């Protein structure tokens, strides 16, 4: 019921969103990086997202938009 989208270029791959997600559906990619050279966060299982915005709450760089 939730949906997260990432402003990829702002992500620094810190993983705080990953840690915060109660559904454990986020991960920092080991392969995908942005122009700044950071590996970026991504959602592995969009279906499971409940739109709680915990991820966005912890993201220091306002990367994530959450819809519900």
């Amino acid at each position, binding site marked *: 019921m*939730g*949906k997260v989208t990432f*402003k990829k*270029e*702002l992500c*620094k*791959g*810190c*993983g*705080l969103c*990953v*840690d*915060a997600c109660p559904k454990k559906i986020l991960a920092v990619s080991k392969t995908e990086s942005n122009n700044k050279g*950071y590996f970026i966060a991504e959602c592995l299982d969009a279906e499971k997202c409940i*739109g709680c*915005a*915990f991820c*966005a*709450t*912890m*993201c*220091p*760089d*306002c990367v*994530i*938009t*959450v*819809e*519900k």
Partner: protein
Amino acid sequence: MSIVFEKTSFLTDTSMHYCPGCTHGIAHRLVAEALEELGVKGHVVGVAPVGCAVFAYNYFNCDMQQAAHGRAPAVATGIKLTDPDNIVFAYQGDGDLASIGIAEIIHAATRGTNITVIFINNAIYGMTGGQMAPTTLIGQKATTCVYGRNAETNGNPIKVCELLATLTGPSYIERVSLGDVKSVKQAKKAVLKAFQNQIDGKGFSFVEMLSSCPTNWHMTPTQATSFVSNEMQNMFPLGVFKEVE
């Protein structure tokens, strides 16, 4: 579907220079969201410190001044008295506020000057590369206490909220944490209240945020936030230290 969370327009589009996982970014967002929610756009002046947040003037979407190291409360005092209708805030680090600037914060507080101060306690001098701060924990390593802080040779950490709470001037003092989701939500409430107080003319209000510095703590971002939630919260208890109705 509707948007539950998106970046506040009270932050500019400029990408922030903070290290990956540095919770300065969360603190910025909370302040910006609060200002947006309170509808004070067009009546805000912020003061950036010297410290990692020195570039805060690039991020907050309002008029900004950049103050000399430690002097943000004095600068904010000048701004506020020149236009008392504006909402004026200072954003300061622990070196800035509790070391070189301890006189300025105490006297702004005791005057009861109607400003809001956001205090980022990350227990280290971030910008200059990891020297000991007044809030560095006993045992914590820094580049000027390489074997870990030792009270005998390095002195004791200062608890700023406790110190300021002895004064008559402040209307509101709270310590919050940026270590986990729940704490961040509480932090947001505190920031809102601190600004609401200013709008209501209640006088000096102060929010201390326990914040991380993964880079100089030599930790991963998640290790660092859990250090905040555990070690730091142990040393610096969360809560409201003063509230004048």
